[in-house]
């Protein structure tokens, strides 16, 4: 790997947002293909962070900083990647239910999914159910990922599922749920296809759903 790609990767592992942004820009200036920057530096960086987290070497602060560095590097490279979606593992529509402003977990999952090759469209937080439905119709994602982080807002997921069913959309899409108060039991109750226990688990489940 070239030196500049190694620097991008290391900046992401180190959670150094400023360095990740700067090195990603330098890589493009040096004429490195944007897709190469993603595949050989940015993605391996966030993947390594995931491994370190799994091994109890990294903890939440490290993962969050790596996620921020990942986003900073991607923001530099993404405008030059018009054709990335053609190369993706699938289209993943992501959002947090209405009334819920928690975005920390969602942002980590978004980074990890992007790193795993998904084209992730992030609707953000406090997403009303009609918006989920409208965006599913418009963007035709392979997977809809819904995050809920409060025991009251997670009940909104039933409305999302009802909306998908009422609009005849459920058959054409896989639904994943995640967030602190959710469990496999809850996912089964609402009729979701998978529950993401954490960011790495969400990626594994998403990849598995794409094979079905």
């Amino acid at each position: 790997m070239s030196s500049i790609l190694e620097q991008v990767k290391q900046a992401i592992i180190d959670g150094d947002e400023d360095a990740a942004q700067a090195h990603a820009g330098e890589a493009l200036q040096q004429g490195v293909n944007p897709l190469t920057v993603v595949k050989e530096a940015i993605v391996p960086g966030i993947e390594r962070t995931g491994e370190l987290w799994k091994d109890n070497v990294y903890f939440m602060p490290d993962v969050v900083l790596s996620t921020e560095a990942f986003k900073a590097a991607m923001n530099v490279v993404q405008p030059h990647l018009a054709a990335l979606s053609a190369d993706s593992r699938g289209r993943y529509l992501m959002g947090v239910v209405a009334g819920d402003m928690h975005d920390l977990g969602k942002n980590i999952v978004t980074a990890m999914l992007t790193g795993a090759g998904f084209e992730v469209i992030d609707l953000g937080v406090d997403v009303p159910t009609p918006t989920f439905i409208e965006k599913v119709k418009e963007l035709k994602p392979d997977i809809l990922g819904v995050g809920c982080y409060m025991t009251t807002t997670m009940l909104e997921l039933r409305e999302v599922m009802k909306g998908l069913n009422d609009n005849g959309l459920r058959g054409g899409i896989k639904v994943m749920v995640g967030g602190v108060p959710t469990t496999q039991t809850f996912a089964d109750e609402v009729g979701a296809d998978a529950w993401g226990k954490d960011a790495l688990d969400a990626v594994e489940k998403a990849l598995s759903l794409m094979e079905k």
Partner: protein
Amino acid sequence: MGIRGMLIRSSLPLLIRLNTMRTGSGPSLLTPKLRKGVQPDPSDPRTWWMAGASAARNPIPVMAQMYDHAMFLSGVPAQKFYSDAAIHINAIAAVSAYYGLDAATGGGDTYNYEAEALGQKMIHSDHAMPDIDSREPLIRETGDLKKVKVPDWERAARIPFILEVIRMNAEMGFATGKFSAPFSLAVSLRTYPKLIRDLRKDPGFAHDLLTFLVDEVLASYLKVQKKYCGIKAATGADAWAVFPNLTPELTEQWVVPYAERLFKKCTDFGLITMAAGGGGDYCEERIEKFDKQILHRCFAIQQKLLLNTPMLILGMGRWHEYPLEPVAEYLKKYQDKGIRASIMANLNARLLRDGPPERITAAVKRFIKVLGKAHNLAIVLANIPADTPPRHIHAAVAATRACSRLAPGADPDEIAVTVPERESFQKYIDTMSGGRGLPGR
């Protein structure tokens, strides 16, 4: 004796209650002793709860954090439940009475009040607890800190609501104030990613922020709490300071010093503060990553935050799945000196929601079997999820009652637990209120 020692002695009644959850005798942390402010009234849910509350007789008391569950069960809209103190307390007392809990305390969204009063943008909905709008942090840039002004605590945002809730708690015998601990309050105003970045890249600013929150914000707020609510102690909630949100190293560096600083500030006006609500808690989600060394480091921090009293809070983690022997091992230092530590043993929120009752009763029995003989236990139902089936809560209470008076050497696993077949909460309310429903609803 230092100032801390003098204060602890002068606040002996509180600390006796904290430390004497003795099996079979003695006062309890949860003993509702001070009920002077509540006159018996058959239409008042606080009276329903008090009539059934018997913590002094229950060797292992059961308490709960259940704001969303109480709101959901009682059918009170969120905007009312989280802004009207009388309705809030009525719902909590009614649900506590229904389950036969040994404590009934209101509080609500503890992490939000100070932040909202300082000007942090919130989202209020009819179905959920108010939530901080993390898209618009009050301190987006470091320079914004200078613009933050200490509000008029007796009037700002929902502070009058929480002051009244704390005052009503005190009337029922739970005279402890509540606040968002400095680190969690900093997260509320700055967002977690930005604050973590500050700790690493701009520690000077992070210190300025936390110092401001302790010296200017929390000290003045707690002074008002003491004056209005008649409290002598207050506990800070600090969920952002639990492991793995923070490592033990970061907690030592960024949480403990500011808890100590706040303690010293508040002693000036006779209030004891403890960051007892989360700081040093161990919440590893992947059971295969359970790590005894990290757990013990968290406990050591927790004890500093609990003023080095022989207490331990097994908080929001997956305690029904973690091994409990490392807890017993950690507490052996007390056992060897003949001291029974006080343990607040939480039943995990997702366990309570998902059940089944047999799994819940098994978790209660395990706590009692491994930790209950050498130490004093309280079973805490951790942040009961909104739509938890009431039968699951009845199971937790029944298991605790059934196993809490065992003869020496008896095995909780041998005890049969019968979960009572109870009427619905609505029917309970109809019966207790003579068909008038929950007051104020």
